């Protein structure tokens, strides 16, 4: 059924609604002028009465959809609005860079984990779960679910969906050959039990101090009624295999991944504010439309989301998306396009593009953190890198402010990777030690280590060879290479030779996993809720650039990697303790102790405090906060509840 809506001479709201319904059924053929401006008032009146989007109300009227009360849970989640109660309707246009740009999809429409991070990032609150209680030991977590909550296809959401997720996905060795760390504190996999239809319990063998935080980015449920047909444990194994063959997939695990893919499977029932109507694999754009069964309301009880439709044109080059934004074809976006380099241009284009900036505060420590491989397989380099004075000398030897001036046009502040001032664990020493530019002192320190200056201006190491190492940066991540080239220039002033080597991303990871690198560069980690990812403070993970091998040793219980020095081992032990601590005050104490050791050891150094970021938002696009924390864990800006964004008609 394809109906093209043209100018409507006489308007009654009933007629309008019918037409909108028809248009919605018709799918693509909407034309913007179909809704003349003077109908906006009618619409919002209709909304006040029905507390739901006109398009849905019409479907209800047609009997295609149950009434709102039957679609909402008994106790819908009430989402505060940033500024004002919104209006229904409109399309949010942004853009994906390539078809696999999943992060932006999650950040805009798909951040519906079991718990969710608060907009100020101070902790998680129940989200899909209605409530949570924890026993005193921190080993049992009981979640209440929302009675009457439904999947986007109208099927009820119950404890069975949680159980199904656990049994079909976590327990299954084919899709989860290794069980996720956050489900196995102390090493053994936790258990999930159904208490009743709307209550589930997660119990662990050890206290799980980080569980609720970690749930801020996990969905511990899956649509059992849909996915069980693709699971050999829950359906006829042969039938499932037939589907695998039919879809030309390599194996069942691939089918499982394919059917759970939120970017490409339009049939997948979801709990998001919008559900997929055109998959990303269609190459030109990805489209999502409002989920009629969405379970959140605004403070006045209106069903969210306000915006009807999300359209993500897929572009292959950032520049195209930049031009689109300048052209006013992007309603709200920061990812990809809002780089410091583009700011001047966006600034100039504000009027023409009818948009403004919102401020983005990065919740990360520093845009550039430089880790020497302290567990380097080469004994000579290792011995040099392990000298704290050497690291101090390197940190002192480059002019952070000059680099900030060049790269960030002065927006920044010399700083090491350390918790941000906004973080409860802010540590001044860690943040600012050795950030001054003092090549004399650097030279003195290097002289003190006995690294005499060679004839060609390069110091000689203990083995009499030049001190020379490679800096691995990822080619795609500008402006790292430029920064490191500048830094290397300074280091050569003090007699240390460093060569910037640009790597392809995957190669970088491979080298890192093999401990085969001298110095690696990455963004600093989480600077606020750092308990989750304290990679910069002790050898915590493969992302701890200064001690990947040490982290491996700790994670594998000593079977892999390299045994770290005592201080690092102490930090790791402290973190083990923290992981099973439930008391917040005690957690703070342990974390601070870890940080003090980090400050003393000076494992890694950085460049600057993050510059102030920005994003583009159209002037009629409302309820986006003036300042948004940029933080991957909370799928920023998803913590600001995109479902309550609205477009002023």
């Amino acid at each position, binding site marked *: 059924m394809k109906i093209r809506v043209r100018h409507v001479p006489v308007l009654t709201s009933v007629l309008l609604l019918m037409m909108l319904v028809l248009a919605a059924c018709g799918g693509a053929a909407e034309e*913007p002028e179909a809704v003349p401006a003077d109908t906006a008032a009618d619409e919002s009146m209709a909304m006040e009465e029905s507390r739901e989007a006109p398009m849905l109300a019409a479907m209800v009227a047609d009997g295609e959809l149950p009434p709102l009360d039957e679609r909402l849970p008994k106790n819908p989640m009430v989402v505060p609005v940033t500024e004002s109660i919104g209006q229904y309707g409109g399309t949010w246009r942004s853009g994906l860079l390539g078809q696999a740009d999943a992060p932006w999809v999650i950040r805009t429409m798909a951040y519906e984990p079991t718990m969710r991070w608060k907009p100020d990032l101070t902790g998680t609150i129940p989200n899909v779960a209605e409530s949570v209680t924890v026993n005193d030991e921190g080993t049992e977590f009981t979640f209440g679910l929302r009675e009457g909550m439904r999947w986007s296809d109208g099927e009820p959401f119950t404890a069975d969906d949680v159980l199904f997720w656990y049994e079909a996905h976590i327990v299954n060795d084919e899709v989860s050959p290794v*069980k996720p760390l956050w489900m196995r504190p102390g090493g053994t996999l936790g258990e999930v039990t159904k208490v009743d239809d709307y209550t589930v319990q997660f119990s662990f063998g050890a206290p799980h101090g980080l569980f609720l935080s970690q749930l801020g980015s996990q969905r511990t449920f899956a649509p059992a009624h849909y996915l069980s047909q693709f699971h050999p444990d829950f359906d006829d194994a042969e039938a499932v295999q037939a589907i695998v063959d039919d879809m030309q997939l390599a194996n069942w695990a691939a089918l499982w991944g394919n059917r759970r893919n939120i970017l490409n499977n339009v049939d997948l029932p979801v709990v998001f504010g919008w559900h997929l109507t055109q998959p990303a694999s269609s*190459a030109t754009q990805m489209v999502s439309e409002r989920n009629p069964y969405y379970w959140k309301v605004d403070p006045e009880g209106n069903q969210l989301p306000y915006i009807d439709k999300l359209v993500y044109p*897929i572009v292959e080059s950032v520049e*195209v*998306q930049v031009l689109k934004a300048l052209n006013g*074809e992007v309603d709200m976006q920061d990812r990809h396009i809002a780089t410091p380099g583009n700011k001047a241009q966006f600034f100039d284009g504000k009027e023409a593009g009818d948009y403004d900036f919102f401020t983005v505060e990065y919740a990360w420590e520093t845009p550039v953190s430089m880790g020497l491989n302290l567990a380097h397989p080469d004994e000579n380099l290792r011995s040099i890198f392990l000298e704290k004075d050497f690291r101090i000398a390197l940190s002192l030897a480059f002019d952070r402010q000059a680099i900030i001036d060049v790269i960030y046009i002065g927006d920044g502040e010399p700083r090491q990777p350390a918790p941000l001032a906004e973080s409860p664990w802010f540590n001044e020493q860690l943040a600012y030690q050795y950030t001054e530019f003092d090549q004399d002192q650097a030279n003195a320190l290097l002289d003190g280590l006995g690294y005499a200056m060679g004839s060609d201006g390069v110091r000689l190491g203990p083995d009499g060879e030049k001190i020379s190492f490679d800096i691995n940066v990822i080619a795609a991540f500008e402006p790292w290479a430029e920064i490191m080239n500048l830094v290397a220039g300074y280091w050569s002033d003090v007699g240390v030779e460093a060569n910037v080597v640009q790597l392809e991303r995957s190669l970088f*990871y491979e080298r890192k996993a093999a401990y085969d690198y001298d110095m690696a560069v990455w963004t600093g980690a989480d600077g606020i809720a750092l308990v989750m990812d304290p990679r910069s403070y002790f050898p915590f993970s493969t992302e701890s650039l200064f001690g990947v091998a040490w982290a491996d040793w700790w994670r594998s219980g000593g079977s892999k990697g390299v045994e770290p020095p005592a201080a690092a081992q102490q930090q790791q032990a402290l973190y083990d303790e923290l992981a099973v601590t439930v008391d917040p005050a005690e957690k703070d104490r342990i974390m601070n102790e870890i940080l003090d050791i980090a400050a003393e050891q000076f494992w890694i150094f950085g460049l600057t405090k993050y510059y102030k970021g920005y994003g583009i938002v159209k002037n009629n696009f409302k309820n986006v906060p003036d300042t948004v924390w940029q933080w991957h864990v909370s799928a920023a800006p998803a913590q600001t509840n995109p479902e309550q964004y609205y477009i002023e008609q």
Partner: protein
Amino acid sequence: MLRYILRRLLLMIPTLFGISIIAFIIIQLPPGDYLTTVIAQLSAAGDLVEEDVIAGLKARYGLDRPMHVQYLKWMGNIMLRGDFGTSFEWDVPVGDLIWSRLGLTVALSLATLLFTWAVAFPVGIYAAVRQYSWGDYFFTGIGFVGLAIPNFLLALVLMYVAFKYFNQSVGGLFSPDFVEAPWTWARVQDMLGHLWVPMVILGTAGTAGLIRIMRANLLDELRKPYVKTARAKGLSELRLLLKYPVRVALNPFVSTIGLTLPILISGSAIVSVVLSLPTSGPLLLRALIAQDMYLAGSFILLLGVITVLGTLLSDLLLAWLDPRIRFDD
């Protein structure tokens, strides 16, 4: 003739087989595999990639098996079931992905080809007939300009020009309003409005070459005695020109068609990336970089097929056009 075509088709088999092996090797050449790409990507997003995720992915993509096994499986599926495998990155069968883009790619390439011809043909004739005239210098000069400016540079600048001075929505082949609209005249117009930028960019380099070929061919032919014979018959210059030398000069010109198409298709990659066209180029580039091996492999294989078919097409066209070749069989 039929036997000739059959023989050629048969000969394609080993060639394509070789191409498939080379394609596969090329994809395997870079260190790492798709998994490392995924891990790196997840990490880039700030996520910590835990072992469980890696292990899950490994099983899913079947990357743990030796290379020749992977190759045989891939080829086996192609030959037995026409199944090109699934793209790791898009999570969609490779076939669907490629076909969805090939249409526009071929359309763009054909449009470019037509454009190139429409320009190169008359200009080439003009430049040859009026050799060393002002016009000859002018047009060959323009041709050189097209040849000497890197495509991607032109693409970027033209895109900006389209945005800045024509206020055109850039990127892709349609305005946002028409992306998903059904085919209507308006949509066609919209597409044509977008098509000119890539067409011109892709066309410039090729046009220069073709003008030069046409001019040189025609100059050769114009010197041949049969032109004089035709003139001695009393034919008018234009008619004579078009019927005889141009027609003969056309042969080498035509023989480039089959080769031009694959060149255009693979050559449009860079321009398509810059202009964000939903053609095959960007897909291939990403597949190569992400080491999405079945996708990249199938793509290269497909381009190989097009190239080989293109050559065959060229030869057939040439045989059709030139009786000397036709009868030589």
